[in-house]
């Protein structure tokens, strides 16, 4: 039989090829330290101000310096291109730049360069981060190393804005010389690392820059490798081929722990999982798409029943790495006053199915019901929205609700529910939990099809917070703000999302409180002093 022999040869050949190609891995030059981070992807352009995708800005902030940046522990700000800064008056912020600082290509990073950058990002309408800069009225070059940024009105959280997405400083001469497109192919910044090679949305290699003002970084090479599948990320870590995985499913932790050379830690992802409840029928397309539909959640009793029917402790357990919460501000921010609503006892006591049942009875549903529609993406920034939504549904049905759960792929969810505002009663949503952004959502001018809440007094309080320069007065305003939050109950908070981080014990790592995987001073070789 000719086939047999041929097949035998083939198998042998295949084995030979396998053996030949199996070059031993990990034979890195021992002198150089290399750190590989498993990024879930996708990664967008590193012309940083163009995009608002946070997971792209993780990389951008290796390549670029901003004027100032958030500290690792989230408690304040630290100078990058700016050595120091001060609030000259209610609307003027003065930044003193590091003298003699340059971009990677030698171009001076001076006041004119800063002005060029901020003017670029606040005027380019195709830049996704542009709206963040609308509060800036003018950028003034005082002298070579001094620049004033003047805001339209008093902006207490300006440091947050000036250190947020789009803060990255680009070399003006180079950008103007080569144009946006060529810049996207070979971006240059002034950060501690130089981008040495990349394949779009696949692999980005950063090499330490000798001339960084803070000195050459300790890790010689940082690589962001896109690995889309969670299981493959964990396997790559176990195989010793990547050094860090940022979002490990809780069930995988024992296996990683048993591997021995892997450090496990847990840190906030700086986002919270919530459920938006319909408080009106005017926002979005809901009324057009479902003309005869009247959301049961228009009744405050129903909304309260939902909130009390949810066992957040159990949900957090299902999530795997979450901390149950009631108020939508993460406690590590120094302001906001949500601590009293977020301590474990208060959250646990909030779960009261009997109260939920009696609230439903008050709303006229003593004999069961109402039917509520609940939309959720399969997965979003929270990690496992689908499972959590299934459990929430079960909890609501326990107290008498009929839940119609609608699970959609994230893109379809965005397209069918989120963007057009076709959410009916309930919608799963993951939101950032930083103080300076939260009040934005509760102003009447906030444009959001899926989420509309306009209570005039609340709007006033939110606006007041955003323009009150006195921090004590601001805290009082926050006190009032929370009364509306719980009084209106447009948003039921479930928990603060945390990430299980696993990394090679060759490294010492301090996770950032903003949930960003940017590796600067928070990453060292193990054994060094941190």
């Amino acid at each position, binding site marked *: 039989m000719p086939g047999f022999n041929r097949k035998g040869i083939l198998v042998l050949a295949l084995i030979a090829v396998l053996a030949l190609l199996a070059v031993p891995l990990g034979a890195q030059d021992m002198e150089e330290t290399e750190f590989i981070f498993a990024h879930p992807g996708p990664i967008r352009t590193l012309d940083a101000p163009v995009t608002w995708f946070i997971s792209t800005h993780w990389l951008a902030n290796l390549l670029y310096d901003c004027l100032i940046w958030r500290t690792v522990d989230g408690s304040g700000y630290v100078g990058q291109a700016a050595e120091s800064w001060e609030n000259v008056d209610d609307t003027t912020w003065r930044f003193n730049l590091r003298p003699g600082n340059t971009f990677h290509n030698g171009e001076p990073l001076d006041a004119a360069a800063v002005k060029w950058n901020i003017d670029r990002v606040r005027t380019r309408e195709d830049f996704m981060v542009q709206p963040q800069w609308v509060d800036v009225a003018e950028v003034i070059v005082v002298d070579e190393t001094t620049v004033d940024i003047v805001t339209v009105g008093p902006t207490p959280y300006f440091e947050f804005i000036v250190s947020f997405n789009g803060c990255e400083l680009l070399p003006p001469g180079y950008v103007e010389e080569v144009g946006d497109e060529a810049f996207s192919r070979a971006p240059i910044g002034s950060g501690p690392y130089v981008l040495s090679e990349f394949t779009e949305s696949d692999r980005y290699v950063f090499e330490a820059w000798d001339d960084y003002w803070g000195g050459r970084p300790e890790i010689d090479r940082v690589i962001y490798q896109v690995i889309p599948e969670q299981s493959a990320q964990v396997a790559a870590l176990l195989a010793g081929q990547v050094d860090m995985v940022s979002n490990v499913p809780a069930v995988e932790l024992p296996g990683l722990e048993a591997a021995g050379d892997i450090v496990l830690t847990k840190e906030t992802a700086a986002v919270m999982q919530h459920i938006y409840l319909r408080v009106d029928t005017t926002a979005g397309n809901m009324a057009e798409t479902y003309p005869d539909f009247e959301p049961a959640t228009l009744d405050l009793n129903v909304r309260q029943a939902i909130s009390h029917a949810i066992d957040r402790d159990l949900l957090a357990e299902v999530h795997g790495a979450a901390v149950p919460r009631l108020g939508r501000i993460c406690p590590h921010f120094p302001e906001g006053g949500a601590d009293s609503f977020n301590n474990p006892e208060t959250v646990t006591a909030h779960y009261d199915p009997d109260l939920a049942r009696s609230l439903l009875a008050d709303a006229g549903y003593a004999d069961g019901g109402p039917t509520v529609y609940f939309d959720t993406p399969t997965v979003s920034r929270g990690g496992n929205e689908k499972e959590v939504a299934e459990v929430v549904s079960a909890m609501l049905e326990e107290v008498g609700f009929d839940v119609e759960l609608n699970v*959609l*792929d994230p*893109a379809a*969810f965005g397209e069918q529910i989120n963007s057009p505002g076709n959410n009916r009663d309930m919608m799963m949503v993951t939101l950032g939990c930083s103080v300076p952004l939260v009040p934005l959502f509760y102003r009447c001018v906030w444009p959001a099809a899926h989420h509309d809440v306009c209570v005039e007094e609340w709007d006033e309080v939110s606006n007041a917070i955003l323009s009150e320069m006195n921090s004590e007065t601001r805290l009082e305003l926050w006190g009032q703000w929370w009364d509306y939050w719980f009084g209106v109950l447009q948003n039921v908070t479930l928990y603060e999302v945390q990430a299980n981080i696993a990394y090679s014990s060759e490294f010492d790592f301090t996770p950032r409180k903003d949930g960003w995987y940017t590796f600067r001073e928070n990453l060292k070789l193990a054994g060094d002093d941190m």
Partner: protein
Amino acid sequence: MSTGPGQPAAAAQSEEDVATLVTGHSRQPSLLSLLRRSPIGLIGTGIISLVIVLAVISPLIVPHDPIRGNLRTRYKPPGFIGDDGAFHLLGTDQLGRDIFSRILVGSRVSVLVGVVAVMIAGTIGVLYGLTSGFLGGRVDGFMMRICDAMLSIPFVIRVVAISGIVGPGLVTLILILGLSGWVTYARVIRGEVLKARENDYVLAAWSIGQRPLWVVLHHILPNVIASAIVLAALQVGITMLAESSLSFLGLGVKPPTVTWGIQLADGKSVINSAWWMTAYPGIAITITVLGVVFLGDWLRDSLDPNVRGRD
């Protein structure tokens, strides 16, 4: 892009359909006797009957509630016994639901989707390929260019586009899978027809003035159907897998409906640890496919004019 080898889909007429279609008159006795003599046919029939019976009676025999789990016993390995004495033969999933129960109940929609979608695709594809190959010339050229156009639009884009027109649900799911896979059959059958219509017996049939439809049904189809049956049998498994990805694009069935595909998708991100979440639904699909393939082999043999009656 493909969702796997070959696009999801395809065909399998019930045996009676094909028999009647091919022969024009009943050959039931010979089919049955063939079945009796073919161990493969018997095993195939046995597996498929078992799957169907289990699917039908599954709600009556599930040991646990397949939809509500015990959240305190999540991700438990096979053979786990809870504090309350609950025994989980194949372990539990991310919501503490019994995997064995979910596989039993999941068989209903999975098998239905797999078989019906394959039948739709196969029927369309075979008819299309027959027409195109038989008519030949410009008609063939035109019909094949339509196939090229169909192939050129990746599955994902078709799915996204269809999702804009129709709402999700079981029928949509079956239609998408069914209407996606016919091109494979069409091209294979058409190629076979091109060859078959030059055969002596076909030319002979022509020369004695038999009507075209008669020639196609009696002389061409029996000679080309074998490939379609083989393809269809394999497509059942591929369709069941494709259902898994569709459910997550928001076009499949919704929770609390259980399918094997949804179970696979649920376990995908935790394969390193909770391997049982994907392994067992995978085995269920494999066994079903094996049954269908055996059945297809037997059916193929009993329809092949050259093989029939031998062995």
